[in-house]
């Protein structure tokens, strides 16, 4: 089962840093994630799309499209808008 890691304020919203979520695409994983943590629904998604400035990676590679494949051992990391330098 893929592992979803949450960062920054998403941890407080979801009440956890990490979850195991079923799903073979990014879209499926995100759908299942918001079912388990409904508070994240409007935070991450907007009209069925990932909100602007959210960064989502699968095994450290940026994923933009919801149809990106996600394997059983993959790690999906979700970052809310962050900045710095």
């Amino acid at each position, binding site marked *: 089962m893929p592992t979803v890691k949450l*960062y*920054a304020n998403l941890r407080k919203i979801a009440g956890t840093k990490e979850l195991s979520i079923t799903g073979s695409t990014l879209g499926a994983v995100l759908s299942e994630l918001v079912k388990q943590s409904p508070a994240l629904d409007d935070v991450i998604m907007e009209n069925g799309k990932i909100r602007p400035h959210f*960064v989502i990676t699968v095994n450290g590679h*940026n994923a933009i499209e919801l149809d990106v494949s996600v394997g059983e051992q993959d790690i999906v*990391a979700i*970052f809310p808008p*962050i*900045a*710095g330098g």
Partner: protein
Amino acid sequence: MSGWSEKVLDIDLGTQTYKTYPLDMEMAQLFIGGRGLGARLLWDMVSPDVDPLSPENVLIFTNGPLTGTGYQTSNRFSVTTKSPLTGTILDANSGGFWGMQFKKAGYDVMIVRGRSKTPAWIEIRNGDITFHDATELWGMRVFALTEKLGQDNNRRNVLCIGPAGENLSRIAAIMNDRERALARGGPGAVMGSKNLKAIVVEGKERPEIDDPERFKFMLYEARKLLNQSPLTSQALPEFGTVVLMNIINNVGALATRNHQQTQFEGAEAISGEELTDNYLVRNASCWACPISCTRISRTEKVEGEGPEFESTWAFGAQCGIDDLPAIIEANTLCNDLGLDTISAGSTIACAMELSEKGYMDSDLHFGRADQLAPTLEAMAYRRDIGSDLADGSLRLATKYNHPELSMSAKGLEMPAYDPRGMQGQGLLYATSNRGGCHMRGNMVGPEVLGAPKLIDRFQVQGKSSFVILHQNIAASIDSLVLCKFTNYGVAEEYFARVLSAVTGIQYATGDMIKVGERTWNLERLYNLREGFTSRDDTLPPRLLNDAPTEGPSKGWVVQLEPMLKEYYRGRGWDENGVPTKKKLEELGLEAL
């Protein structure tokens, strides 16, 4: 002309005299202020035969036409000099309050020349300039000195050096308002070489604004945009810059153990989340800044500003250390000693690798948090092994016959982003006019954060155009002088509009980018005149030849050569990286 004070203060420390004269306004319109104006003035004043630590080098402090107006982040100022660390042109800028106060004292520019026979400090109270004896202050650390000289944020502001600057450490910073720093490239050593301990300013003048109503509207618009942007209204205030630790580690671009790896297993322990949960006391902000990204942190031993992401990385991942309290304490110690945290941390990491490989006789080892504070003390006072480290990693590694272990470009230690995982960042480091630096245009936005838009970080072809644009924008913001974080919410077109409202001169967005391009090319000309060539547009061999063996950047090295060729073409330079006559004419630099 509104915005500018139109006045230069020119100080000769050798004779302890000063003069004031009108600013060349034709020059000011072309270069605006800050970094651009400083570069143009340095071109005329400091030639290739000048040793950076000799009395002939100068410190040029500049603000800009927006400084002190109250426009969001209009607190910053800049210092320009020839770097004692790299030998390149150097500009460093800083926030806080001092820049605003300097503008209120009635000057756009302050030039400091010569060398005082004995330690001195300067007090500027509006038009009155007083030279004071600093013999009894020499040796004082930054925090105690700042308090002694009467720091009072909105009324009287202190800029000074600590022991590192006095002892001519080539990675010494100039500190202002206690914990803000003109950090990179060793300007603190230049100030120390002049026997100048501090400059204290008080001012009462208000910058004149050409169109107050339009300016007020621009203030309103900028406030709205900064409030609307999740980056400036939530991300930066809530977690500060250290929030980058986990994401840069996640994508395999976090330089670790002197760039031997690209991911750090202890990243979570030194992350922004950890800092916020366990060490944050409160937020703070520079003058006229609604973003409030500054952290005030506390451990059992210290309470102070920061640490920022780069400092946390330098003493953390780069040294293989996951002890956040020790990192916070190292950061505070650097501020008190007047050391650049990035160069200090990366130089210690270099020494750790030299020691572990048996090239240098010391007990420094990766992961030893207990070694940070004593090593920094030794560096600032040039004690024992610290004397070798005080001049940065390239001189250190060269002394021990392994210059390839200095993780620097043109001698300036690179910051946190390992460019094997961010190709554009690699080109940016290699071509930066002051050496390895993330503030000369930062590719982390487009290559990782998707700001303003995500591009493929491993892409090579076409990457140079992004780098050039970001470098020009950075140079233009540095010439205004504003904080680059405003650019996360406020686009460049707004900078042109507010500059027009303040000065009465109509600037378009393209004009602002052109100011940046002009500045970049002038800095390039300066470095070429100093003897730098395209051979210096390079990176440590490790980044060009040794691919990471694991993580998301596995198998990648920086593909510098093709990007560099494309970059020179894109810049309008010849194949040797020299600006063409046509380009110089286009930028109004043909006479140089």
